[in-house]
């Protein structure tokens, strides 16, 4: 008997996920985004159980392949894989043979030869996850590639907004800071627009250039004018360690023009959310007391990141895939 007969009636809403990889939010339809968020909501409950583990990915191997350093994203993926009963191997740039001159593709093919089912890739070059996903049978999950995309961060951001405010459509979200170099900003913009939110980018003209308006967002260099009308303010980290050129005169000047100080926070709507992908520079993008206030959902974002990553791993690697011919 090849096709096992179905016991009862067919599922009410057939899941619409057919991807083996998650490379970019830009590729996803609003329905796919919503499916990930709904699936994540179900997986969030697993972390509240006495035994925080389900067997969905039992017997699968996940390789955390981080060519660029990261602690929280890697740990979040690692924990998500553990909760789904997958086995995890961590490889960083220094422990891989990339430092011996092996190409990315050769390293990845070696991992696949060891029967890695899922490769979570963080890479400094935009397009590296796409490159691998087209060449490997394994699932490839983008954990951040250059200044391109960081899809799971955007998913956890919209998940947190939806959980706290009940919806995403119709909300006005400000993304503040280093937009130009931020893969988080790009993924967030795509996710928010696809789900029907209005997005305004805020920053100095060197870091929030007008070209972004082509994506369908507003750009402003004056944070004070938009604070009273936004529902969510998402503060990006100033990556001062990466600034090779001077994009603004000093951190102090950045804070005085764009930092979310206590005075500025008072101008927000009472129920507006304050978000930050972390790690936060206290006293730069955000005042310490604002980061710890009731409106800050920064730690919710971390918790939700785990649920969202469980959902992504389950969706991309859970089902049987037809063997490539």
């Amino acid at each position, binding site marked *: 008997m090849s096709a096992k007969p179905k016991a009862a009636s067919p599922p009410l809403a057939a899941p619409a996920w057919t991807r083996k990889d998650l490379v970019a939010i830009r590729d996803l339809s609003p329905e796919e985004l919503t499916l990930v968020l709904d699936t994540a909501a179900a997986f969030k409950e697993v972390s509240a159980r006495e035994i925080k583990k389900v067997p969905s990915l039992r017997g699968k191997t996940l390789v955390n392949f981080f060519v660029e350093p990261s602690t929280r994203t890697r740990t979040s993926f690692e924990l998500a894989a553990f909760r789904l009963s997958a086995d995890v191997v961590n490889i960083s740039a220094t422990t891989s043979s990339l430092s011996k001159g092996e190409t990315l593709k050769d390293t990845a093919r070696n991992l696949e030869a060891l029967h890695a089912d899922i490769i979570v890739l963080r890479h400094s070059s935009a397009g590296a996850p796409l490159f691998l996903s087209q060449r490997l049978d394994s699932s490839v999950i983008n954990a951040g590639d250059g200044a391109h995309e960081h899809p799971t961060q955007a998913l956890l951001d919209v998940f947190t907004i939806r959980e706290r405010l009940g919806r995403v459509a119709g909300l006005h979200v400000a993304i503040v800071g280093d937009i130009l170099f931020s893969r988080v900003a790009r993924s967030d913009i795509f996710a928010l627009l696809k789900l029907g939110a209005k997005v305004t980018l805020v920053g100095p003209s060197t870091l929030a250039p007008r070209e972004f308006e082509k994506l369908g967002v507003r750009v402003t260099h004056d944070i004070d004018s938009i604070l009273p009308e936004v529902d969510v303010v998402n503060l990006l980290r100033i990556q001062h360690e990466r600034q090779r050129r001077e994009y603004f005169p000093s951190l102090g000047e950045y804070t005085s023009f764009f930092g979310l100080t206590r005075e500025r926070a008072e101008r927000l709507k009472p129920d507006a959310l304050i978000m930050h992908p972390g790690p936060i520079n206290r006293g730069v993008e955000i005042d310490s007391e604002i980061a710890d206030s009731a409106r800050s959902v920064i730690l919710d974002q971390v918790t939700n990141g785990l649920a969202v990553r469980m959902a992504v791993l389950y969706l991309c690697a859970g*089902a049987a895939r037809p063997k490539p011919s």
Partner: protein
Amino acid sequence: MSQPAPQPPAPEASLVLDEQAIDRALRRIAHEIVERNPDLARICIVGIPSRGVEVARRIASNIETFEHVRPDVGVIDVSMHRDDLRLRPHLPTVVASHLPPDIAGLTLILADDVLFSGRTCRAAMDAIASFGRPRRIELAVLIDRGHRELPIRADYVGKNLPTSPAQRVYVRFRSVDDSPDSVWIDKE
């Protein structure tokens, strides 16, 4: 009060239970549950999505009608616990589970529409085990169609329905399917 005859879900399907028969079966199950579990504060009726949740809700409503106490109702997601995920071309939709915070002293009564191989029930028991250790787990089903693949039997059965393994059984609930309450079986 005459209602139009429900439309079969497949052209050759024949009606096994109509609205009244389903209602009678679920009322009898409710009586049997009360008979075996006099302390209604210590039971929780746990539906297996999707239609098992509706079965659980109706059994609980029946118990409330007879006993004037509404037992707890829960939901247990089984899709994360299935042993055949890697064999399926499409993933089942996962939904959040809801169980009472402490299940240690409770009798959990699993509710589902159709009992077939028993694998869904096994997955539900595995899922429950990750929440704690209930005092007892029982199983209530609207239809038992046989062909078990595991050593599992139901404690409460609405109707035993002899089938061939390839036949399909359809359960329709007005509240879930926008179609009158009915159970159908495909032509052999």
